[in-house]
Structure formats: C-alpha cells, structure tokens
C-alpha cells in the first residue's frame, strides 16, 4: 500500500494569482525514507502544511495511508494528523515550559491511537525512548527550555516517534546542529523510523545530508511552478 500519493496538486496562497505548488505526482511506499530538498522559498514548508492537513490545496488529492485528506473536514484532518503523523521542526520544537518527558508524551494527549500504540504505559515508553536516544536521566524532568539544542532535538525526535506514527515528517531538523552532530542525528532518525516502520519525509535545503536515504527528490523537479519560473 502507498503511504503517500499526491495527484495533480495545485496550491496558491489566498490573494495570490500565481500558484505556489503544482505537483502532478509524488508517490511514496510504506517505510520508504526520502530526502526532499529545495532552496528556501521553494514551497517546502507549504507542502508540509498540506501533508499535515493544516492547509488545503485548490486542486488535486493527497492520499495518506489510503485516505484522501483533502476530502476530510477540518476536525478530521486535525485528528488524522494527530493519529498518523509525527512532526519534527528545525528548532524551538518543544514547549519550553513542559518537562522533556511531558513534551514526549504530548502526542498521546491529543491522540488516543498514539496513546494505545505507545503500549500499556506511555510514560514508560517515553522513558525507554529518551534512554535509547541517550538522554541522561537528569534532563527528563527539566523544563525543555533548560536543555541544550542537541538534547532538545533528541527529545523532539522521541516525541515525533512515540505511539509509532506511520508517517514521520522532518522539516530541517538538523539546521540548529553543528555538522558533526547533523549526521549523527540523521542516522539516529533513519534508524528509529525504520524501527517503528514509519515512512520518513526529510526536508532540507542542504543536499550534503542526502547520503543515507532511500530516495532523493528535488522539489523543483516535481513542482511545475518552479520549472515555469526557472524558464526564461
């Protein structure tokens, strides 16, 4: 079964004549891990918003795990996102006033499915993941704001992975890390998403990070808007 299938997608921002995205086709199989790259302003974040169901395309369909989320109502899309998608952002990923552990558990408060999939005791599962991601025990109960950037990104990864969502979307998650740690973090993410069997969409403007992915996709190549804009 396809994990993700985009067909004839057209999106433009309100009050803008020019389309922002025009993607005829993009398909991902379950468990596939792709590296999606494009320069800043190429519409990466917009695409992620569409995949997350917080924005709706004017045309086309986005099928995730077999359901077309563009046909769902707002509440159902929010629910779908909570149940099936784990998100990871560039930085300031965590709620600074919650402890690391509570941050990891957040998806379980919004989705009963994620809570159930996190096992009989989600807290124990969160602890297991934090330990697995090499976070020392002292930092679990600290407010997220007191953690280092590297620690924060690992907590955010644990949060994206808890309850084994089928799709993992990472938006420049390594941009706040130094070069050495970037690769370590990416390897960790690849390994963890494989462990939970998630389809991983990793978005970055930095092609040097593309090494260990199953597939590398340039947004400009699948987005017709960019072609037209690039044409003289």
């Amino acid at each position, binding site marked *: 079964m396809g994990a993700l299938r985009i067909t004839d997608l057209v999106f433009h921002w309100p009050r803008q004549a020019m389309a922002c995205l025009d993607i005829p086709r993009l398909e991902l199989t379950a468990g596939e891990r792709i590296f999606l790259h494009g320069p800043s302003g190429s519409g990466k974040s917009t695409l992620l*918003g569409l995949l*997350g169901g*917080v924005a709706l395309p004017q045309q086309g369909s986005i099928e995730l795990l077999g359901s077309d989320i563009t046909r769902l109502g707002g509440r159902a899309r929010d629910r779908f996102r909570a149940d099936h998608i784990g998100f990871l952002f560039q930085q300031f990923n965590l*709620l600074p006033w919650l402890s690391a552990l509570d941050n990891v558990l957040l998806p379980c408060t919004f989705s009963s499915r994620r809570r159930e999939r996190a096992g009989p005791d989600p807290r124990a599962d969160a602890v297991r993941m934090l330990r697995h991601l090499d976070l020392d025990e002292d930092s679990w109960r600290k407010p997220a704001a007191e953690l280092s950037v590297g620690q924060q990104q690992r907590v955010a990864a644990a949060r994206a992975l808890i309850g084994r969502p089928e799709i993992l979307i990472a938006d420049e998650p390594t941009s706040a890390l130094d070069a050495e740690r970037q690769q370590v973090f990416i390897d960790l993410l690849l390994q963890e998403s494989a462990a939970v069997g998630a389809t991983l969409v990793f978005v970055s403007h930095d092609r040097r990070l593309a090494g260990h992915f199953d597939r590398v996709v340039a947004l400009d190549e699948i987005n017709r808007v960019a072609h037209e804009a690039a044409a003289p």
Partner: protein
Amino acid sequence: MKAVLRLAALSAWSRRLTLGLTLVAIALAVSLLLAVERIRIDARQSFAQSVSGVDLVVGARTGGVQLMLYAIFHAGAASNNIGWDSYRAIATHPAVEWALPLTLGDSHRGFAVLGTSAEYFARFRHGNGEALRFREGKAFGGVFEAVLGSEVARRLGYRDGDSITLNHGLTELGPEHGDKPFLITGILAPTGTPVDRTVHVSLESISALHLDWMAGAPLPGVGIPAQFVAKFDLRPKEITAALVGLKQRSDVFRMQRFINQYRGEPLLAVLPGVALDELWQSVALVERSLLAISALVVVIGLAGLAATLLAGLNERRRELAILRALGAGPGHIFVMLTAEGVLVTTAGALLGLVVLTLGSGLAAPWLLERFGVVLNTRWPGAEELALIVAVIATGLLASLVPGWRAWRMSLADGLTPRN
C-alpha cells in the same frame, strides 16, 4: 479537553509574572467593587439601624423625611417646635410606654447639642436593639452637665471631667453661651449612628441657657449668672421632637392617627422604618453611581487582561504551531487562550475576595472609630456572589477576543508561523 486545559494552566504558569500583574490588577478592582457593594449594604443597614425600638417619631407638621433628618440625624433645622403640653399629652396616652423629648438648636464646634431626659440613655436603642453604653463616666445629673458621643470626644480630645461651652445655632458662628460652661460627666461608646456626633444635655440645661435670651439673641442688659439659674422655673415650654415607644406595637397606626389629628397643634408622627426607607431612596443615586464607577474599574482591569493576552500572542505563535502539529485543532487553541483568560479572571476575583475579607477584618474597628461605618466581616452574600459571577462572565467575554485572534492566527499560520 482536560489535557488542553491542563496545558493552558501550565502555559499560563510559565508566564506568571506578566499574568500575575494582570491578576493583581483584577484582584484590586474586584476587591474595590466588593468593598463598595459591602459598604453600600452596610451603610444602608447601619442607616436603617440608626434608630431601633422606636415606634413613632413625632414633630411639628412637616415632611416625613425632613422630620427624620432633624430628629434622628440632627441635620437641618426644624421648621417648628411642638409644645410641652402636646408632648405631655402623647407621653401620658395610655398606649404609650415611654416618650423621649428631644430639643435641638444649639451646637458645640459643629456637633449638634441634643437636649433630652436622662431616660434617653436607658431607652434609646440602635442596631439590633443595642442599648447605649458609657465608655467613661455616667449620665448627666443636673443642669450644665453633658454626655458626649464617642466621635465628639475623640475628634475634640475631650475627657470625662473637661468643661465645654455651647453655641447658639447649628454652626460655630452662632453666638456663644460663654457664661454657662458644661461639665462633661460621661462619654458614650461608639455606635455607628448619629449619637456618636451628638452632645447630650438635659432639657433643663437648654432652658437655663436661654433664660436671658429671646428670639435667638441675648437680651441686652439682662444677664443671669449660672449659679442663679436654679431659682428659675426650668421646665421646658417646647421641644423639637419626640421618640415614642408603645406598649403594644399593634397600636402604632392608631397612635399615629391620634397624633396626626391632635387638636392642640398640627403634629406629624412617622414610622421610622418607613421614613428611613424613603430617605434612603433619595441617596440611592449616589450609591448606584459608586457601584457603577467600581464596575467600570473592573471592566478596565479585564480590558487590561485582554490586552496582555493579545500582546503575548505573537511570542506564542511557535507554541501554538507546535500544538497544531501535534493534532490540536483551531478549536483547541481557541479554548486554550480563552481558558487562560477565564483562569486569570477567576483567580483574580477570588484573590480580590480574600483581600477584601482580610482588609475589612483589619480595617473594621478603624472604620467604625473614624467614620462611624459599621463594616461586618462575613461570608460573601448572594449579591456579592452574583457580582463575582458577573466579573467572571465579563472576563470570559474579554478572553474571547484573544481566543478568537489565536484561532485566526493558528488557521493562517498552520505549522510554520511567519515571524
């Protein structure tokens, strides 16, 4: 939803300094509102209790409100006096248990002088039927002896055994009865009624003061020294008003009719409760304006709350986007923001209640002593609870604004706040 409210509370706690200041502003506004309401109710009550156990107030024919004003509150002047014969006729009526004569018209440094009988101290009741108590000394016995209300003694610094002189008329500008000083024999305990602001002397003293006076001025060439007044007939010829207690309260309308139709001269008898109500109606406007002003202060406090929440919203865009990514709908965001406002309002209102309760407990003795306002420390009554509920409801309304704004923002921002 419970999880969302918990997150709202935790998020608010992380911004406790700014929200705390807003909360304190709301608490102060609420305690002001409740204090005004409480003083309003207490003032009304202490007003209604300025006289108790009196069945009828009798004076020359005039308005009921005016009669109460001068007979009970010693404010303004009587248009006419009533004859001693009329007073005797009432006092000796078979239905009447007691009748206290009152004579007004003199003053001491702005405080009214009340001529009455010594029976006054035993009969007069205020509040819930409380009798007058002497803080120092005892009732006046003879001529040129005076008993002071607590405020008179406190404000002017008089003690038992001091000596004072009275002025003719209600102001200090009136001519002085300088040749006939009074000895203070007693000082009353505070009552929260006009008694506190009154100098009490005997009717005979009033007569003695005016032996050598006529038509409001000393008779030229006639001076009767204080030591000789006892040779004269000091029985009063007329008095200003009388307080009447009946043997049976059920006789009150019959007695009122008897007095109002008294043939000797035109008289008026009023039921103090009814007249006090009438009098209170005339000050109700002031009372309501005070309440309106303090309600406005609360509204300003709540507008401040909405402004604080709105101002903080920009810094929280990232937080809201994270919650959106985790599956929170715009509805959750709306509830979170609104709940925060309601939380702060509720906490502020409760803190205001605590401040008021503690404050009034501490200030009550001082208020009674200084201003004669009786402030009862008590649990909030139905009116106060209704006010608190109204404040919280208004807080909810005010919080809808940032809630709505956050809802709009989270829809527009999606997962990537543009900041």
